[in-house]
């Protein structure tokens, strides 16, 4: 009975998130347009300029658009994670957060359900993106499309947990612009999403180290290897640990007696 209770709560949260995603067609389209613009415009422009050496998991020469595809998948999940955090702030402003939080289930469970819901949505977006990329001749081996699922789950959870953590700091919707400037852009540009690490090393060692230790880079590499049927254990451990750290911090952040909520005056 108690398990059923948990299940109903989790399903309710996931269903609400999916429903919100499906009904908000603009959100679905904009979530797809962003990486597609990068793929069709940005990558096409750099196609000739960047000669890529062979680095694992690739076994031969690749076009730039093939290289940035895992990075754009990461981008989808990063934005989705932030979008979920935005919706948390919105929920708090609207008061629906209060209803959720008074639910007689552990807070961590509710947050985890929220996280899973957001990750589920991002995985849907990623597969639609991969399908479009397939027709644009960016094709991974078919097994890769299966292996990438667990990788997407972990990277989605990690980026979502980061979003949750940030949302515990943000009081008003207006502050979201700060998240864009100080979190999303630096994370995305200082990563292996757009350029390989060795290329970065050529220009700046500092940038190389920042990118190397950026958890977003590790999530992108996890996805990149999985898409080609390979397991990058270093990226896996790094992403997993980052998830635990962000999630723990978010749970503390959402604890009314200890976290940021007290300072902000509650939900």
């Amino acid at each position, binding site marked *: 009975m108690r398990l059923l209770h948990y299940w109903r709560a989790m399903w309710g949260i996931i269903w609400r998130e999916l429903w919100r995603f499906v009904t908000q067609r603009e959100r679905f389209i904009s979530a797809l347009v962003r990486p597609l613009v990068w793929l069709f415009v940005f990558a096409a422009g750099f196609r000739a300029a960047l000669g890529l050496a062979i680095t*694992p998991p690739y076994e*031969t*020469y690749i076009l730039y658009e093939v290289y940035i595809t895992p990075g754009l998948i990461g981008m989808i999940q990063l934005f989705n994670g932030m979008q979920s955090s935005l919706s948390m702030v919105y929920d708090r402003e609207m008061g629906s957060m209060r209803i959720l939080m008074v639910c007689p289930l552990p807070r961590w469970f509710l947050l985890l359900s929220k996280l899973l819901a957001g990750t589920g949505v991002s995985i849907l977006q990623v597969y639609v993106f991969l399908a479009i990329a397939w027709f644009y001749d960016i094709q991974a081996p078919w097994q890769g499309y299966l292996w990438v699922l667990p990788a997407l789950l972990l990277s989605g959870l990690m980026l979502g947990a980061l979003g949750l953590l940030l949302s515990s700091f943000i009081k008003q919707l207006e502050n979201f612009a700060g998240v864009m400037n100080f979190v999303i852009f630096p994370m995305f540009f200082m990563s292996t999403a757009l350029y390989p690490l060795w290329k970065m090393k050529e220009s700046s060692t500092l940038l190389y180290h920042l990118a190397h230790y950026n958890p977003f880079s590790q999530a992108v590499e996890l996805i990149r290897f999985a898409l080609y*049927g390979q397991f990058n254990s270093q990226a896996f451990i790094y992403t997993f640990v980052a998830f635990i750290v962000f999630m723990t911090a978010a749970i503390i952040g959402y604890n009314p007696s200890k976290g940021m909520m007290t300072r902000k005056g509650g939900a």
Partner: protein
Amino acid sequence: MRNTFVSGNAYGTDLSRPLAQWATKVAPTAVFAILSMAFVANAQAETLFVTLEKDNALAVVDPIAGKLIKTVGIGQRPRGIVISPDNKFLYVATSDDNTIQIIDAETLKVVGQLPSGDDPETFAINAAGDRLYVSNEDDSLVTVIDIADKKVVKQIKVGVEPEGITASPDNRWVVSASETTNMVHWIDPKTNTIVENTLVDPRPRSLGFTADSQQLWVTSEMAGTLMVLDVNTKQIIKTIPFDVQGVTRDKIQPVGVVIDKDSKRGYVALGPANRVAVINAQTFEVESYLLVGQRVWNLAFSPDQKRLYTTNGTSNDISIIDLDSQKVTKSVGVGNYPWGVAVKP
């Protein structure tokens, strides 16, 4: 750091007995069967020989495993390479030694030399496997060599800077292309004289006959085109230009050309454009451009024509193209300046 996925299974205790039986009785047989299959598959796999211009060596590659097996030192500046029709000998033009070395395809030992004339680069073997036709670029000659006698049969005066040369599968023609004269010269191998010349686009580079010997495909390095010639009329019936998205025209320098045995598709190496053009041999449309290593030079099919191998001069590797899926599956580092490639079944 780099591993493949491993799936694990947990078995209950009720399964342990049949599992133990399986492990002791069935598994060794299965392992033996798999190993012997692997051995047979390995025995059937072809071997690639790649000449390394700067290393004065021959790279031996297992293309199925995608691995360089070993590198063997040979003469100076090896370039053109062909294998005898019986697959027993390799002939390698060692340009700075002014000779063609005969190498045993099994032991990889140099077993003889052929008098090629000065600075041999490109040469062709006839279908019977008894004659070699060598381009001598500096002397504007084609040297005809009798392999068994190891003697020059004749030297034929051709246009300035002869480069590409090929013999038709039906043994009726040997065609030499001279880069500066912009001509292909049709040589009758019975008389070893030029019968006819055809004017082609500037700097004709490489030539290839279709399996039925009815068409000759010629690449022009400077015009960036492929010309298809009718063997009966010896006239150009089609000129195919190349245009690679995102690559400037000056980088498109067609070199090596091969056509599959069914005349379904032809493949042209585009040099510094780092692409292999795939051409429909029926409609003469360019179907696609496949990205390979830098300055792709020469091409060779696997014996079953399921794969195509390319030598990439400046990226020091070869690329392996799967022809069923029309995808480049792997690039394998081989050594400095890979030039020519020969395949032994």
